[in-house]
């Protein structure tokens, strides 16, 4: 048995019991009485700021009131009306910068209504009973291809199916769910929730999923355009940005996305090798998810190294504090330079940075930290653009996800705009579906 002190990269640093405890639900589900008390704190605001702050416009005061009157199933319906992945969003939404930040109780007393946890209670209530609260409209005879079974694709597909359109989802992976299945820290989606949610969503009917089908390899956009009445692209960001570091080919460097995926897919957490000293390069949610989970796997020292200051991190303060509370060290204003031998181990050399005007430059001063394993979490890139016009590095869209090509829509992380959050992807998929429906059925152009 190895331990957190075992040098290098090693599996089995913690016992199975410790791992099971470490990877349990980040937020324990609320009990019914806690729910009543939590729900009672909602003021039922007029034109509520939380709703405005929600990318999917869930009627939060209404669903909380429905919970408070012991109608959690109705509350769940209110949520799913706007956000069919409300169950996952209740788990992964950065509520602290969305609905809960806007909550008037956050403004007045620094303690918002626990909207995320209440949403989870409602959605769990309905999904545990395996009730799908929607009935499909009669078939319209129209067919739409959705490429990518992540949050945007699933949301779009469900809304289209609901409206009586036949949907085929193509996904490059063996399982549907996208980042809900392959990304996101394991402790945010326990008990195979992502897969269960997909199965529940598909029970609307009218949706076929073709797994292991990659656009550009197994089918082309031209073909889809001719075979279907419309196409919705929600392919995500399949590529990962590479570190520019002189020793990049070193075997101890890998991308955080792959690490998180491995964690999500394994049935044996102990078998995943992890460094004694881990450094995660980046400042987003992926960096935090990778760093915290490294710690939970038994790494002794974990550091997040970010090239700008704390305020520029895209991971919220809540996420930063979550990392810190797990013992992850946050290092700001540093950029990786190279890996060096450090005795029998490796060290990462980081250079301090400064911002001149808006330009980030190295100061020349360096710091060296032990690094048996380095994860790169410096963003992902669009891997497939289908020949569509781009806006920067993403597919350019206008309105409800319309691309440069007729009858092709795009949404989620691959499309321009939005915050690359699950919840924004859901909103974009839903809104594109309504636009597609209006175009195909309503005669809009």
């Amino acid at each position, binding site marked *: 048995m190895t331990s957190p002190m075992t040098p290098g990269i090693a599996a089995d640093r913690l016992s199975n019991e410790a791992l099971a405890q470490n990877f349990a639900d980040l937020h324990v589900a609320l009990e019914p*009485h806690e729910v*009543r*008390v939590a*729900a*009672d704190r909602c*003021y*039922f*605001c*007029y*034109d*509520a*700021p939380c709703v405005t702050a929600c990318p999917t416009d869930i009627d939060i005061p209404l669903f909380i009131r429905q919970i*408070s009157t012991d109608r959690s199933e109705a509350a769940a319906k209110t949520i799913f009306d706007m956000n069919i992945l409300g169950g996952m969003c209740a788990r992964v939404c950065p509520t602290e910068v969305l609905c809960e930040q806007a909550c*008037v*109780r956050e*403004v*007045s007393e620094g303690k918002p209504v626990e909207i995320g946890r209440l949403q989870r209670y409602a959605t769990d209530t309905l999904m545990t009973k395996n009730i799908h609260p929607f009935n499909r409209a009669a078939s319209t005879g129209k067919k739409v291809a959705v490429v990518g079974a992540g949050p945007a694709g699933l949301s779009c597909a469900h809304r289209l199916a609901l409206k009586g359109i036949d949907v085929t989802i193509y996904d490059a992976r063996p399982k549907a769910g996208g980042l809900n299945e392959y990304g996101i820290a394991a402790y945010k989606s326990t008990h195979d929730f992502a897969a269960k949610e997909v199965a529940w969503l598909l029970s609307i009917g009218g949706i076929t999923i073709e797994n292991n089908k990659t656009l550009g390899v197994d089918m082309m956009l031209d073909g889809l355009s001719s075979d279907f009445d419309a196409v919705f692209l929600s392919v995500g960001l399949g590529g990962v940005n590479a570190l520019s570091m002189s020793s990049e080919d070193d075997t101890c460097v890998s991308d955080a996305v792959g690490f998180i995926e491995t964690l999500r897919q394994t049935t044996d957490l102990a078998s995943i090798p992890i460094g004694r000293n881990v450094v995660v390069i980046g400042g987003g949610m992926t960096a935090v998810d990778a760093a915290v989970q490294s710690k939970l796997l038994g790494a002794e020292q974990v550091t997040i190294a970010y090239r700008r200051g704390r305020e520029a991190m895209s991971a919220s303060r809540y996420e930063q504090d979550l990392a810190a509370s797990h013992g992850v060290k946050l290092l700001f204003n540093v950029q990786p330079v190279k890996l060096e031998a450090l005795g029998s181990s490796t060290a990462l050399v980081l250079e301090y940075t400064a911002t001149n005007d808006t330009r980030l430059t190295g100061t020349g001063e360096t710091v060296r930290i032990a690094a048996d394993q380095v994860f790169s979490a410096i963003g992902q890139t669009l891997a497939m653009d289908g020949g569509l016009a781009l806006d920067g590095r993403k597919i350019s869209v206008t309105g409800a996800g319309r691309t440069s090509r007729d009858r092709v829509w795009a949404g989620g992380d691959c499309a321009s705009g939005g915050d690359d959050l699950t919840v924004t992807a859901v909103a974009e998929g839903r809104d594109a579906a309504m636009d597609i429906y209006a175009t195909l059925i309503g005669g809009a152009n």
Partner: protein
Amino acid sequence: MADLTTDFLGIKSPNPFWLASAPPTDKEYNVRRAFEAGWGGVVWKTLGAEGPPVVNVNGPRYGVIHGPDRRVLGLNNIELITDRPLGVNLEEITRVKKDYPNHAVIVSIMVPCEEQAWKDILPKVEATGADGIELNFGCPHGMSERGMGAAVGQVPEYIEMVTGWCKKYYSKPVIVKLTPNITDVRSPAAAAKRGGADAVSLINTINSIVSVDLDSMSPEPSINGKGTHGGYCGPAVKPIAMSMVSEIARAPATAGLPISGIGGVTTWRDAAEYIALGCGNVQVCTAAMTYGFKVVQEMISGLSQWMDEKGHSSIRDFMGAAIPNTTDWQYLDLNYVAKAVINQDDCISCGRCFAACEDTSHQAIVMSEDRKFSVIDAECVACNLCVEVCPVENCITMVQQPAGTVDPRTGQTISDDYANWTTHPNNPDAVAAE
């Protein structure tokens, strides 16, 4: 340090907090512990006539209206009078009174509406040494079906008659406990006074069904699938009780009749309010049944602190102080003009004032694009709804408009002369102001 001792009908007690006739005062064990905990007096749970005692149901006796965090807001019960033998109660009362000479011990009684029944029991009660009796003319369930309790309390002539018997066969103070389950509480109170009552106490519980089980379709508490109305008490009934107390305190026929206030007293403040409305003391039940006897300690310290702050050295100093300010609607000053003012620094922008005013009142609050809420004086009638629905205390206040300014709603110049409905030109029965 304020003096909390009270002298109610000559009955002394260390403070005005008595336990009402109810389960907490059903036996010696409880009453001794209550006195040790600090209660000033007890009204012993109602005694019935000699003979086999009443029997209670063997299923649930209570039902409750809860707040979201299980706060007991209202309590309903279907329990009857004491179900212990008369002799046992009398022995215990005798022992307790002997050991607690400085605490008030009142005996609640309910026997059939026949002179002999009262003639039989009163000497036995007198022999206990207790300080007085309270006639239970209020219990609304069970006993009333047998012609007692509220069945007597709802007929003023019976109240007067039975009170008269008690004054005839009992030498110490007689308190008549009134039921709220009537149209005008002044009538039974006046009857009690005519019968010679030394005081009235009110209110007894209110007829109530607290909930219906929507699966079994049985009112609750449910006894094998059936329910019945019970008696409602606790914080929820306080406003009803205080109104009734004030009516008796104000009515010419009963003004000056000592009152023991009952109904939802939970804190020192509740007690102070009852006393301000003319009560000589208060009786408590639900608060003790919810929190235990210790709750009286907060009541004692709270009332004492408040009295010190206000410079009241004794209960008498403020007893009835709110009665001169309790009037009829027709005498309210129609020249008093107020407007709601929203403190923008305290406002948390929830919009509840706006929703309430816009949907259900006078459309006198406007909301800006950036969720700032302000009052339109030309529409505001000062109804106070915004104040009451605002979650932030004192964020919205009603501010009196100075005399000489124009009320933009009416276009009238505000006068500081007192003027009420009796002289208002819209009143067909108006008396011309001289």
